[in-house]
């Protein structure tokens, strides 16, 4: 037996859909990656954390997407939510932004007074309390400003608008930086000259075991 939907209900649903479309809600959720796949599970405390370990965490995000205010991704090397409007934290797309990526790769604590390390699962949606500017100024117990000339892999270069971590240093003095670059680019490794830019300062995550 076919169950008929009453006409008033259809009209109501249509009106809601139309009003949401007009309000821009439909595109705001685009793929709704975080709603479909991400979680708020507790992270695991780790008493031993290394730069190599953080490199591994970072590389899992390579080729994934970028989400303003985001911090959840899988490891299939595809941006699951391309083309979201930029600098909208409500678009629920895949990937981190630059500061969320750094927080998660550096395995930091949501409590800014705690220097301890936490293993955040890729699909744990977490951005952390720091913006790029916060990192630049060494805000939070785990973070410290550091002379740019002394930065090594998995240290970071930050400005008031952006942060990326050093993957390797090139012979010409530039760096290969792993970073969440933007909606159109996602997360990857690019050659950068941040180290020579006056807008950028050095940042170091404190407490590495190796």
């Amino acid at each position, binding site marked *: 037996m076919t169950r008929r939907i009453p006409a008033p209900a259809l009209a109501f649903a249509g009106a809601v859909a139309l009003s949401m479309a007009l309000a821009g809600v439909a595109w705001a959720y685009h793929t709704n990656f975080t709603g479909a796949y991400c979680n*708020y599970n507790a992270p695991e405390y780790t008493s031993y954390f290394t730069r190599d370990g953080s490199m591994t965490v970072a590389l899992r995000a390579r080729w994934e997407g970028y989400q*303003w*205010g985001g911090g959840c991704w899988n490891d299939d090397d595809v941006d699951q939510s391309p083309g979201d409007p*930029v*600098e909208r*934290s*409500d678009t629920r797309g895949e990937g981190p*932004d*630059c*500061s*969320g990526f750094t927080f998660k790769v550096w395995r930091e604590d*949501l*409590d*800014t*007074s705690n220097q301890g390390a936490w293993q955040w699962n890729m699909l744990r949606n*977490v*951005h*952390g*309390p*720091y*913006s*790029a*500017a*916060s990192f630049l*100024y*060494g*805000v*939070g*117990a785990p973070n410290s400003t550091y002379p740019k000339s002394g930065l090594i892999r998995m240290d970071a270069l930050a400005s*008031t*608008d*952006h942060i990326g971590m050093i993957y390797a240093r090139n012979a010409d003095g530039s760096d290969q930086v792993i970073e969440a670059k933007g909606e159109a680019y996602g997360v990857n490794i690019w050659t950068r000259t941040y180290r020579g830019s006056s*807008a950028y300062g050095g940042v170091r995550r404190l407490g590495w075991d190796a």
Partner: protein
Amino acid sequence: MGRVARGSTAWRPAAAATLLLAAGGCGGSGLLAPDRLSDGSTPPALPAALKGIEGAVMTGTRTLHGRDLEDAPAVDCIKNMPGGAPPLAAVEAVTVDGHTLTFSTADRQRLVACDGAARRRPSRRWCGTATTRWLGGGGIEDPRLDLANCLTADGATVAYTWVVPPARARWLVVDHDHFREVYDAGSAYPVRVSTTDGIDVKTSSATIHVRSYDAAGKEVGDDTVNAQVAG
């Protein structure tokens, strides 16, 4: 004597509860305007048009020009900011939980804020900074929530975020758990508001309820701002 003493002790919680209920306005709003701003100063008088708003406290707002911007603490904020040339003007607000300075870069392409509070973790004058693109029409790209580093004297986390007032708004009224805070929205800049309420550490976000009023005290907006740390 002993009985009296026991009786007296037994009455204390009940009496305290009664007083709390009375102070809390059992049947009233329970809102109580603080009598001091974060710098210890007495809050300015409420605008006449907003006198009827219960539990409201006025923030201290002033616009800094020229030489004002060469004095501390403004100069400590401005010297590290992008844009090179100093701004023409900056809006300073002293709130119940902290103080902020908002200005545009000289090319008027970006907005910058320095956020301050009673306590901050590194020993700098300002405990937070924020910058975002200033769009045509007065809008901004992102409200730039900042909650990483500023604390009240009691150790509570202070969150700051920009709120873009609706057209015709002259005042913004921000709801806190126990009072309301009135901001002057008369400048060209978005208003940098601060709060210790509505902060969700787990999602690094804050939810702030803001009502807007025109110069005559007519409500022209009622919004809930959901801001998220980003970028």
